[in-house]
């Protein structure tokens, strides 16, 4: 795979929704055929633009969920209560509808197949989306670089990509661990937030020199990134992507 040019002019392109997969009660994956898609790196995002009949427009950014395999891209959208674009994408958009996209965007929170160090992925909720793209790119590239995903999620029914994750976790190079914060499945005793003890037990340590990707709501990312730096990880190798509010008016 060629490295995508990062400073190329981006134009809006009209894609067509070819498939929709329900992931959870509030999230779904859109498979979109984009004829002139220039390719992307795992971890990048794109802009989606909606246009009303009177010309009113609204745009938002979403992480790409798929590895680059051609003209078909996938994005997974979690519905934001009181949102403007995500409720349309999750509840209204149908197979066959056009969808305007522009991308890919972002060249920092990315994994390149030529990277050799261990990959540590830490997701909070729908922050798993760009990390799934990394796991898929890792598999598509046939990379034997060890990778671990720690996925913090409220309850079993909130897990996005459950069957894909089971499949990926069957590979001997990839380890997937769930941390349930509200309700765990039978046989899983631990319920609680990601803490220093869990990170120490489950994730690559500083001596392994992993590149760590943390994605999730801002308070989750702040807490996890602080714990990693506190445990001795080099801050320059901890890449973060935050979304949502900071957790209260300030």
């Amino acid at each position, binding site marked *: 795979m060629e490295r995508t040019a990062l*400073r190329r002019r*981006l134009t809006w392109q009209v894609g067509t929704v070819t498939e929709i997969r329900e992931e959870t009660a509030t999230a779904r994956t859109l498979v979109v055929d984009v004829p002139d898609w220039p390719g992307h790196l795992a971890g990048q995002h794109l802009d989606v633009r909606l*246009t009303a009949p009177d010309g*009113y427009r609204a*745009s938002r950014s979403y992480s790409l969920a798929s590895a680059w395999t051609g003209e078909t891209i996938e994005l997974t959208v979690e519905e934001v209560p009181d949102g403007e674009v995500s409720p349309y994408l999750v509840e209204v*958009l149908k197979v066959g509808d056009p969808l305007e996209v522009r991308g890919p965007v972002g060249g*920092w929170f990315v994994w390149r197949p030529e990277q050799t160090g261990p990959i540590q992925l830490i997701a909070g909720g729908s922050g798993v989306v760009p990390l799934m793209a990394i796991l898929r790119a890792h598999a598509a590239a046939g990379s034997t670089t060890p990778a671990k995903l720690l996925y913090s999620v409220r309850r079993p029914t909130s897990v996005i990509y459950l069957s894909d994750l089971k499949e990926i976790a069957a590979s001997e190079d990839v380890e997937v661990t769930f941390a349930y914060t509200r309700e765990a499945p039978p046989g899983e005793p631990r319920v609680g937030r990601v803490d220093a003890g869990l990170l120490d037990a489950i994730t690559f340590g500083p001596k392994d020199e992993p590149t760590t990707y943390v994605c999730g709501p*801002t308070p989750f990312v702040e807490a996890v990134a602080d714990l990693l730096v506190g445990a001795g990880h080099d801050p320059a190798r901890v890449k*973060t992507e935050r979304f949502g509010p900071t957790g209260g008016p300030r």
Partner: protein
Amino acid sequence: MDIVSPGFTGRRRSGTELPPGQYLTHEFPVLSAGPTPHILPEHWEFTVTTETGEVHRWDWATFTSLPAEEITKDLHCVTRWSKLGTDWKGVSLDTLLADVETSADFAMAHSYGGYTTNLPLDDLLDGQAWIAYEYDGEPLDPEHGGPARLLVPHLYLWKSAKWVRGLVLSDTDDLGFWESVGYHEYGDPWKEQRYAGD
């Protein structure tokens, strides 16, 4: 090509004029590429380095003893949120650069943690930019760039470098952190200069 999104009507929130493609928020979201650096004011310093290598230096005590301004500004983030009427206190770059002799046209802001962003020097002068250290009457949170951040509110917020520690003046317009991975080199929200080539 103009298309219509079938079944989309939008939720217009009228009343305020925002730059194109932005939506209004009352929260204060955070966008950072890495862990939040925690810098104690007693370890903080701010430097201006000219194109000839001359260095001007302020520690926290001398910096906060400079005349400060209270400013109220609208913020526009490239991730599409805008927040209006935010209150800051900080030192104008006009004050910090008053005794700096330079003929440079550009500045690279450098931050604790390694972040950089490039700006034309003209955009830092004439009451357009500050080193801010209070938000809403309180010391600036590390999450939002404390102890001090650059504030250049007429450009997208990534130009307002958090955890700022210095400016390096130069005759050439080099690219900063986000600018080198596809974001626009200037970033005017009213012209919607989000990505390279916009």
